[in-house]
């Protein structure tokens, strides 16, 4: 039961989103059938099923809690409507409202806790599958990833990057969305980074790569170009390596962890593995949405490409590397 229309003189806050939400479509992670089969037949497959059962139970528990909360929300709406109709706020109503709000906050916290648990289970399932995949690859299923499959992988990876969820009032940590890494941050092995490499014709490009190792004595990274066709391993100083965010920021709760509109960033050009200078044109409004950016492109009349969508994971701070003599 929703609240009635607000009286023309009083403007009520809107908390509810557009209903229904836009449908979610995820680029599926490309797995060859042979890998899928190998994974299905693995001994770990049972663990997967267990996790799925746990998830199922959690979700039902969550939904029950949500259903229980609905009457309370309806009474809040009823009281709010009454106040609006009376066109004044009495002290007794105010106190009633306060108690309802306080109860609702507690209810919401319970819901949040349950959703977090459900999400955690999903991550567990994903980790198990990740292990299975690696096992399948190592057991002789060596295929080089074709470009099309690579692009799908990159998209899937960006969409399913974990969302950072903090407690009330907590600040988003480094490497969540646009929050920069700590000063002495060192990217971990297998993390994705953007690194500045010199091409064969002497030109510098920021490319997408995976960390292989970090040498603490020389302070240099060893990275692999994500595009396996290049099969290039580079050794680079820290100045030339910038870690990609490890978590997505929630635009509804932590808009401060997003790059502001009009700011200049480096973004991964769609369907490529290179980063280019771009300008933020639109911010995502939901967790599932991407940035809309304009790439700097002298081939267009006004110097910028038409708007293109880039996920949070592939938007990083602009970094001008001073050239060493």
């Amino acid at each position, binding site marked *: 039961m929703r609240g009635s229309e607000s009286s023309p003189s009083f403007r009520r*806050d809107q908390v*509810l989103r557009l209903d229904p939400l836009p449908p979610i479509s995820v680029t*599926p992670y490309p797995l060859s059938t042979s890998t899928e089969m190998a994974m299905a037949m693995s001994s770990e497959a049972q663990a997967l099923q267990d996790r799925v059962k746990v998830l199922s139970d959690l979700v039902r528990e969550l939904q029950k809690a949500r259903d229980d909360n609905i009457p309370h929300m309806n009474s809040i709406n009823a009281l709010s409507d009454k106040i609006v109709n009376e066109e004044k706020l009495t002290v007794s109503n105010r106190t009633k409202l306060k108690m309802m709000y306080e109860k609702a906050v507690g209810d919401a916290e319970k819901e949040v806790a349950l959703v977090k648990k459900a999400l955690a289970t999903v991550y567990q399932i994903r980790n198990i599958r990740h292990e299975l995949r690696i096992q399948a690859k190592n057991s002789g299923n060596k295929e080089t990833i074709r470009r099309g499959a690579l692009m799908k992988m990159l998209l899937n990876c960006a969409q399913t990057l974990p969302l950072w969820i903090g407690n009330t009032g907590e600040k988003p940590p480094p490497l969540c969305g646009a929050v920069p890494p700590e000063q002495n941050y060192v990217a971990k092995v297998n993390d994705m980074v953007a690194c500045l490499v010199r091409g064969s014709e002497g030109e510098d490009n920021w490319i997408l790569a995976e960390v292989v190792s970090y040498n603490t004595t020389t302070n240099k990274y060893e990275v692999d170009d994500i595009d396996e066709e290049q099969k290039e391993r580079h050794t680079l100083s820290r100045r030339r390596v910038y870690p990609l965010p490890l978590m997505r920021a929630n635009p509804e709760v932590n*808009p401060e962890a997003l790059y502001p509109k009009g700011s200049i960033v480096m973004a991964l050009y769609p369907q490529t593995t290179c980063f280019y200078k771009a300008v933020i044109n639109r911010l995502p409004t939901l967790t*599932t949405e991407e940035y809309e950016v304009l790439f700097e492109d002298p081939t267009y009349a006004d110097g910028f490409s038409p708007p293109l969508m880039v996920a949070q994971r592939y938007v990083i701070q*602009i970094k001008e590397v001073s050239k060493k003599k």
Partner: protein
Amino acid sequence: DPMDLKDCPLGLPVVGSLDHARSLPRYTALVNNEGVSMEELDGLQLELELLLSSVLVRQMAFNNQLSIIYQLEKGKYVPKPAVSPGKKMKREEGDRPSKKMKDSSGKSREVLSSPGPPPGVKPSKVKCSVQKYEPVFDVPDLGPPEQPKPPPPKNDITNRFWAYVEQYCQEITVEDIKMLEDMINSPSEDSDYFKTPPLGRHYTLRWAQEDLQDEQKEGMKLAEGKKKGIKGDPSNSDLSDKLLKEVDMNGCSDDVAPLGPLTQRLIAGLVEENVLVSDIENKGVDGLGHTRPGMIKSLGLGSASSLEKRIKKELQEQGVMETDYGNEDDEDEILSELRRCQSELRAVSAHNVTQLTRLLNLARESLVRHDLKKRLRDADQKVVEAYRTIAAARQKKKTPSKKDKDIAWKALKDREVIVRQLDLASNNNC
């Protein structure tokens, strides 16, 4: 005592639970015990995240309202926050932490705001204001992020180019034609240039007079210093005239003043040359007048130029000299130069007029073409409309009506006529 609603800072939000059946299909399947496939796992993650976000937003809203209520309970005055359906990101000054979200996607998301920030209140810990965000960016390797002026400055070289070319390519207007006609018809004021002004006083005479006047003026200036009351200019100029006349008379009587060349030749022919031999030591080449002063004057021959004319006329009548139909003034260099310039001016004027006329004709023709082009555009429009009607009819799987077909044919035929006319007009110009 109760508070008036219009003063009430509370937002009284309408709250509700996300309708999972409509918005979260995979989650709903799981709720209904239909399980989840591995392919759907990623989608499920995203749905759960959205669900979580909606609960968090709700929670934030409650906390905001509660903080306001707490302040009201303490008796503090809370200003009504200016809630704007959030399209713009408001930048707050100072320490008003405000949670404002930019609705750039055009969806109907409205803004939550939390007013005034006593430090103890929970929401203020959430430092959401965008301004505070900037220092977080201060990583040592990089400077603060660049902020170009949005939108990025447009490259307007193309606009300047077209503006420049426009001068050359734009349509001829009726005003242009009128201007050309005026230009052709106007050169009547040149007629002044074609008149030969009468000969003025000879420059030596004029300069002599002017010099005399100047000297008088200077003399007057000196004299004024000593005694006043000297009469004004008119009398002095009379004086100078009289002086000059005397000079003139002297000049006239003195044969050193120019005798026309014809006169001199004639006299030289008539008078014996003996004079030169005996007189040359004494007189040099002063001329005849020196030996017999006053003789020429006494002949009553008048001025040198009129004498010259009379002699010429006489000689011509006698047949000694060919009649010179040329203007006897030709010998005057200045006059010849003047005549030369005048003929040049005439030639240039004529040329201008020719060109202007040519231009005028071209302009008139192009005006005609311009009209035709306009009519062509209209005709094109009609054809397009007719096409659209027919296409729409076809789309609805109906055959287009006879009326529509007729309209279409007529439009096409009209257009053809105009095109032919335009071609004809263009060909005439080539």
